């Protein structure tokens, strides 16, 4: 069923009796060409692009819970491609281009809103770094704009420009960045993949891999054995746990990142702002709530809840930048479990086990990567070769010293 203005009008006039479920709820078949573990944004996007771009429709997505209940429903919905390094920037720019055409591709309103993202500058050194990054972005066609303090003041007059420690000296803007309705991303991809015959199997937890003579033949699940020509793992947050079932150790630790949302306000924040020096970022949702976050909690955790000291730290960062926040009530906060990789960059690669493929290590930047991650993983699964923009995301980069260290913080996940 395609959605359209005409369809909405027709349903409005006939009592809304013609709407059907957005995807089926099938039982697993005994064998698929490709099984994707993880029904989050990345897994569902992989299934959609496998079906629509690589003609692979005998595909199942296995989700241990329900669609949209993992990290795709627990993030701050920001999209951007303001990266610097060669291994990264083309990938995120590819992703942003896919976001721009997402709704037409999926026939689904994902509320893609290119309201712009602004990285604030607080020191001369930061300005130099951002000019360099902006030039990198322009060279890769992502677009960037350097704003003076006065220009920032015209757009965001309520920020604290004269903070003693971190005065605002300007900003680096990417006008094409913005936000997307995160749940709609999962639902849109699920619906689009399902319509091409992909089986989305919810409440089906993978409990082990069947590996014989170095080849993966399928997965053991809570709903029985499911055979597969190829198995792709896209379970960021739980990557280490799932891959341990295949006997692999990863360059990844799991950490909790908290996010927060306030009560609904009238429109106050036109775009996304980031305060890198204090680590705070904020946008306003279409419902009016201010959505913001900061640092990870700082120790390994699989609990989808955060600690109080980080709440205090994020609130302090927010107040330093945006004093008006002090009058706003916090509605709720939540924590998502992140794969923190050793260089802060993701992995999309084959494993040493034939037929077993891995996509993970997204740190806390997985949401913006969803379309490109899905496309590149689908490319890898379908063709056995890495996509051009994801060639750097290999397992062996740590051993070979070719890390993609975007933040320049070295091999220590708790520093990112």
């Amino acid at each position, binding site marked *: 069923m395609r959605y359209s203005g005409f369809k909405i009008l027709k349903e409005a006039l006939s009592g809304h009796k013609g709407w059907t479920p957005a995807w089926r709820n099938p039982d697993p078949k005994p064998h698929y060409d490709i099984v994707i573990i993880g029904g989050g944004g990345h897994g569902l996007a992989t299934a959609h692009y496998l079906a629509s771009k690589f003609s692979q429709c005998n595909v199942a997505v296995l989700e241990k819970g329900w669609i949209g209940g993992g990290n795709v429903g627990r993030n701050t919905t920001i999209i951007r491609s303001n990266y610097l390094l060669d291994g990264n920037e083309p990938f995120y720019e590819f992703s942003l281009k896919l976001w721009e055409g997402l709704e037409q591709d999926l026939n689904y309103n994902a509320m893609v809103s290119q309201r712009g993202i602004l990285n604030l500058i607080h020191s001369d050194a930061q300005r130099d770094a951002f000019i360099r990054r902006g030039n990198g972005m322009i060279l890769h066609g992502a677009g960037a704009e350097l704003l003076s303090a006065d220009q920032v003041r015209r757009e965001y007059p309520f920020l604290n420009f004269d903070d003693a420690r971190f005065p605002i000296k300007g900003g680096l803007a990417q006008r094409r960045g913005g936000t997307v309705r995160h749940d709609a991303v999962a639902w849109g991809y699920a619906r689009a993949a399902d319509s091409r015959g992909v089986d989305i199997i919810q409440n089906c937890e993978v409990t082990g891999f069947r590996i014989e003579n170095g080849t993966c033949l399928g997965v053991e699940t809570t709903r029985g054995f499911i055979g597969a020509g190829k198995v792709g793992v896209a379970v960021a947050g739980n990557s280490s746990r799932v891959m341990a079932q295949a006997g692999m*150790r990863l360059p990844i630790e799991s950490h909790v990142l908290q996010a927060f949302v306030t009560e609904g306000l009238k429109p106050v924040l036109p775009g996304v702002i980031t305060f890198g020096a204090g680590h705070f970022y904020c946008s306003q949702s279409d419902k009016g709530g201010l959505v913001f976050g900061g640092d990870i909690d700082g120790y390994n955790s699989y609990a989808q809840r955060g600690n109080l*000291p980080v709440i205090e730290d994020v609130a302090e960062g927010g107040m330093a930048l945006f004093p008006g926040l002090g009058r706003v009530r916090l509605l709720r906060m939540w924590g998502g479990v992140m794969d923190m990789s050793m260089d802060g960059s993701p992995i999309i690669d084959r494993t040493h086990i034939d037929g077993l493929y891995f996509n993970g290590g997204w740190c806390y930047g997985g949401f913006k990567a969803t379309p490109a991650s899905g496309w590149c993983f689908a490319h890898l699964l379908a063709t056995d070769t890495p996509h051009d923009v994801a060639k750097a995301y290999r397992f062996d980069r740590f051993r070979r010293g070719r890390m993609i260290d975007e933040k320049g913080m070295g091999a220590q996940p708790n520093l990112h």
Partner: protein
Amino acid sequence: MIINHPLLGPCDAQEFTYLGDARLIDRPDGMAGGAEDAFYDYAYLRDNPAGEHRELWFHEQGDRSWLVVTRNTVTHEITSVELARDVARKQGRGV
């Protein structure tokens, strides 16, 4: 979280800096055979369990000791706290 320091008693976890897996105590011998693989493993790979995890905490705002804390990564319950020095000695390291 409260970490029950073996010398100082209960301390707020905020006084500490977290380093990660307690296996980082076991730095490989750079002169031994297979050192390259051993260091790759040591520097980058992690078990990352959901459940009991032995990890290193540095009492930065206290007595600057290193502790080995056994903590559940799902419930955040701490079941044992030892001085990293004692752990290393038990393994036959140090004097």
